């Protein structure tokens, strides 16, 4: 297990044991800004070394994957878990989008294992943030309208797409990731050299601190699992594995390396807990955030960074 994950476990232990450990909110905010920018910058510098024409077809396929994943999750949630349209669409949006911190742990894992990966991957992370959220919200809304039509009433309150897209496209994670990508791209390897000490060399240490905080936060979501723990544990672990396989197979089809296949699998498996909850809370008011956040943060995030990551890597190696 990568040492950074041990920091996560320490945080989780502290919370469960009711320690008074608590990171200041401002530090959490600072660390997350750092991580997003650092990941973006790293990817931007690498994109500068590649031709955009070569990356573009892969990027389009990755966007399509982001839009497809909620379409897989939604019927599973509707049929097997018997969730409402709103809850199913909301959870599908979370799983269609990605978790940047999970990606950061994935990079740490591959670097430690000395597995190479396509270094422009942060671009894919940025591209995967948004489509899943939009499709999840559309699914929830279509269901609501269909139900309203069945009941003979007028369609439910329409989703206001303008403010919503503003929220998603200009949310902090997209702005910092894409901003970092562009700055890194423009600056190139030489231009970014003076920043290396801060953004690249300190990356692992900052990630470790952030994961300590994430352990505290994730363990705090355990209460959300109380009512439907069997469904939540089942969906929160099995769905990511299925999604990981989709990502890994797509990675192979796109001709990615084993490291790239692993990362695409991990991205497909990860669930958003920053961009998605913010957007869906307003767009799908009737969805229960306890369910979606309990799943994304309480089950899938810990699963992915501990057991999922090595599992996806093993699957990628097998399929290669």
């Amino acid at each position, binding site marked *: 297990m990568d040492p950074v994950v041990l920091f996560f476990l320490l945080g989780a232990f502290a919370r469960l044991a009711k320690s008074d450990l*608590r990171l200041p*909110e401002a530090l*959490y905010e600072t660390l997350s800004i750092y991580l997003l920018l650092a990941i973006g910058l790293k990817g931007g510098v690498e994109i500068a070394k590649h031709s955009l024409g070569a990356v573009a077809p892969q990027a389009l396929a990755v966007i399509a994957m982001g839009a497809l994943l909620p379409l897989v999750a939604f019927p599973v949630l509707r049929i097997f878990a018997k969730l409402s349209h709103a809850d199913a669409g909301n959870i599908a949006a979370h799983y269609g989008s990605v978790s940047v911190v999970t990606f950061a742990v994935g990079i740490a894992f591959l670097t430690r294992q000395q597995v190479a990966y396509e270094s422009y991957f942060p671009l894919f992370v940025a591209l995967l943030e948004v489509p899943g959220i939009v499709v999840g919200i559309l699914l929830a809304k279509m269901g609501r309208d269909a139900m309203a039509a069945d009941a003979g009433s007028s369609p439910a309150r329409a989703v206001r797409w303008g403010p919503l897209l503003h929220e998603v496209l200009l949310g902090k994670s997209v702005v910092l990731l894409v901003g970092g990508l562009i700055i890194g791209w423009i600056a190139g390897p030489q231009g970014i050299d003076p920043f290396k000490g801060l953004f690249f060399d300190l990356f692992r240490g900052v990630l470790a601190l952030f994961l300590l*905080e994430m352990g*505290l*936060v994730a363990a*705090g979501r355990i*209460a959300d699992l109380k009512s439907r723990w069997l469904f939540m544990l089942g969906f929160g672990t099995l769905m990511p594995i299925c999604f990981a396989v989709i990502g890994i197979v797509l990675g192979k089809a796109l001709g990615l390396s084993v490291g790239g296949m692993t990362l695409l699998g991990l991205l497909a498996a990860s669930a958003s*807990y*920053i961009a998605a*909850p*913010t957007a869906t*809370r*307003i767009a799908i*008011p*009737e969805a229960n*955030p*306890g369910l979606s*956040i309990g799943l994304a943060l309480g089950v899938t995030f810990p699963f992915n960074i501990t057991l999922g990551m090595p599992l996806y890597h093993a699957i990628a190696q097998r399929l290669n």
Partner: protein
Amino acid sequence: MQTHPKKLLVIIAEAALEKLLIKDARRLGAHGYTVAEVHGGGATGERDADWEGNRSIRMEVICDEAVAQTIAEHVLNSYCKNYSVSMFLADVEVLRPAKF
């Protein structure tokens, strides 16, 4: 010193509602507002502000009674069904009535 009676409307809600609440309050006649980040708990659990999705705000509006009633009613109808919201009204005295 002469004082003037006004109403203080306090809305404690999920931070996700902040922009909407401010817009609504302005539209329904509030001249100003104050927002602070807070944390707390209720019947359905704790909101301890440990990450983005778990933040809460406390919004205070000082205004005429009619405006306070209108805003409160709007919040009740629009948000209370699906969001964590606490709300109360109090009598306050202000020194510069035109400001509110």
